[in-house]
């Protein structure tokens, strides 16, 4: 049985993080990375096969929630996640309540947790 590979867009302003995310999860998922929210939006437009978006919270120009809010307007079928080094704040809590984001992950990220969560969602 050929399982379609899930495509994940990871947005983070830290290139090492992007690289680590790509290296660790490329075997399970198709990984697309973006260095900012703007780039993330462009990638979404370019790759219509993106299933999941995971975004860092603190980024220059546009933070993770702002980016996801914009992206979900154009791509409502995509599942959105936040990956943050900070504790949960009000903005994130609201986004969770609005079902804008499905879950938020903590940094330093637990690769297995992310993998399991996504895999379970698309099983």
């Amino acid at each position, binding site marked *: 049985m050929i399982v379609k590979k899930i495509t994940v867009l990871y947005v983070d302003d*830290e290139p090492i993080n992007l690289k680590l*995310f790509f290296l*660790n999860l490329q075997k399970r998922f198709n990984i697309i990375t973006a260095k900012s929210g703007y780039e993330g939006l462009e990638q979404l437009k370019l790759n219509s096969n993106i299933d999941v978006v995971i975004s860092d919270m603190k980024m220059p120009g546009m933070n993770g929630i702002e980016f996801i809010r914009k992206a979900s307007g154009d791509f409502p079928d995509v599942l959105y996640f936040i990956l943050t*080094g*900070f*504790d949960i*704040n*009000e903005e994130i809590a609201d986004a969770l309540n609005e079902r804008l984001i499905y879950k938020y992950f903590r*940094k330093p990220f637990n690769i297995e947790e992310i993998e399991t969560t996504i895999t379970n969602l698309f099983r």
Partner: protein
Amino acid sequence: MKFTYRLKNTKEENENLKLPKGLSYYKDSDFSTKLRARFMYYLCFSVIIALIFLVFNTSYLHLNSKEFHGIFYPVIILEMLLILVLGICIFILKKGHYNIVKHIFISSSMLCVWAVMWVSIGNPLVRLDTVVYILAVFNLSSLFFVKHKRVYLLYIIINVIVLFVFVFFVKEDLSLTSSTVIDYLADTTVAFLFTGIVGYNIIAINKRSFEKVETDNKQLKKTEEALRQSELFRHRVFDSSNIPIVVMESKSYKYIDINKAALKIYGFSSREESLGKTPLDVSAPTQYDGSPSFKKAAFYIEKALKEGEVTFEWLHRRPDGELWDAKVQLLSFRSEEKILLQFSLIDITEQKKVEKELQKSELKYSTIFENAQVGIYQTTPEGEILQANPALIDMLGFDSFDEISKYNINIDNSYVNSTRKNFIKLIEEQGFVKDFESEWKTKGDETIIIKENSRVVRNLEGKTLYYEGFVENVTKRKLAEKALKESQNLFQTLAQVSPVGIFRTRTDGYTTYVNPKWMELSGLSFEEALGDGWLKAVHPDDREFQYNNWELHLKKSETSTAEYRFLKPDGSVVWVLGRAEPELVDNKICGYVGTITDITEVKKIENELKKHRDNLEILVKERTEELETTNEELIATNEEILKQREELETVLIDLKKAQNQLVHAEKMASLGILASGVAHEINNPLNFIRGGVFGIQDYIEDNLKNHLDELQTFIDIVNEGVDRATNIITSLNHYSRTNDLKKSICDMHKIIDNCLVILQNKIKYKIEIKKDYSDLPHSLLANEGRMHQVILNVLTNAVQSIENKGSISIKTLNVDDTLQILISDTGCGISNENISKIFDPFFTTKEVGAGTGLGLSITHNIIEEHNGTINVDSILGQGTTIKIVLPLNN
């Protein structure tokens, strides 16, 4: 009575004349007319019957006699006509026109006779009949006529003329000679005239005698009426007279008539009772002089019979025994051969009584006259003394009346200053003098003042007979009056000139006098001040007080003084001092006399003084108050200073504390910011490490499987390091938290229970949990997650402090508006040197890796964020109690 009877008889006679039914018209006609009408009525009927008979007879004769050839109609028709005429006569008669009927009757009879004669010319016998008939009719006519006798003459003349005419016309037929005619005419005319004249005279005689009878009758009636009237009148007068009148028979002495007044005065109940009584029945047994009444009565009756009239007084007695006096006038008169006596009585009982009283009073008056205390006199205008009673004699210093009677008051100058002339003038003018005062001289030449009340006694002609009157010696009274007047004058003058107001009131407070000064002070007039009027002048503010004060003193009847104000009509105010003294007469209060003194000036000065004094007092009071205030202020200032010092000390301590806290807080804040900044920045490198290690481990698992066991240890150590660092950073993250988390109503008990569930595996078999929750519900507004964190931290510390076995007591209390949570453990406790550091971040007594040293610090921060407090009470080796106090949202 007699006349009434006769009148009745006449009436009966009149009624007895029965008129035929048809003649009811003549019911009210005079007697002769009635007779005539009746006669005429019957006559007509008889003639009609006779004529009917005649008609038959004539018809029979005409039919059976050879002389006639059948019925001779003119005669029959004539006879029939006559019947008709008579019928008409009866008809008219019934209608009441007797006079017309009589003429118709006579005329028609004659016409008939003449007609028959004319018709049967040839028969001399018939002519003879005619004459006889005419004569008969003439005779008959005299019966009918009463008035209009000339008409009768007219009938005769007409008949004579008719005779002549008849003869003139028939003499040829009968072939009479002139001499025969003349002879016949002469004879017949003479017979007519003679019969006529006789008839005429009969009528005249009848008429005159009838008139005479009628006049006599009228006269008689008039007389009768007059008599009747006078009799009635007399009787009425007799009966209605107020004067009692009795008529008595002179021989038997019995009363035969008595009028109503007499009945009343005698005391009889009815006329019947009185009739038959004699004078002795109404008299007292004896008369005034003591002689028996019957003798005295006989004497007076004899005298009346002899002299016709006698008047005397008589003592009567009524049937009920009451005696009464009467003046009796006895008259004798003759009536129908009888001698009667009439008594007229006048009741003089009252008069008699008055006479007796007069006699008695005369006696009494003479006593009064003799014993009176006032002088009584009678003097002539000339000055002669007619009467003087002992009092007067004594008053004038005489010994007896004889002595004084020699004295002439006009001449002997007993009047001082010719007042006698005035007296005479006055008394003659008005007929009396009243309270006439004059000075008299006594025998001893002493002057006395007298008062007399006198009147004039005059005779019928109006000439003065004498003066009589009462004299009173008023000398003493006059002197007293004079003295009184002088004293009054003195009082009046004193009151007028008095510089104080004076008033006088009755016991009820009614003012009867005020002096001019009083009026001046009050501004009221004398009239206005009287009665209760004085109150009007009193100042309205003092009025009630003054009125009550006055009432009070009236009751007490003692001297009263009061100060009050008058408000004068011009608006000025006068202060007065009033004094009132009871006025005593025979130890009884009959009023009050009082004075009022003008004390306005005094009052003014007093007020001025009072004002000064008041001012002074106020000044002193003010000063004292000022001093007191100053003193108080000083004390207060002192206290204030002390307080301020204390406060300053406290503040200093607080400041120090605050400074410490501030420093601490500042330290914490900067540390927090630093920590969170650091934490975040460290997150990424940690991520690199974690990610890198993950990648390495993955690579080894894929490619260097046989080295995995050796390398795994290193990988684990790296991961352990990353985990610890992550833990620290996660905790540090709390410091960076803004205080903006949402709060909701939390149930603290539920939170505690949740935490206990989380810690369950650490508590199990080791620690006993004792819960003592408050029964009262609490409304705690807080962030539920944070609260969980707080409780979890505290409980974790408590759990970790217990090494082996122990217990944790959790108690909640509602105290005021706070919720207190006490968590005690039987753990190791905290040393004194550590207890101040337990809220510092990174302070921990736990072995490395067991705690971050941030738990209580974070807890502290959370509690502060919720405006609560957290305290620690711990004894080393025994246990620790954490007390959290949170404000409730009430």
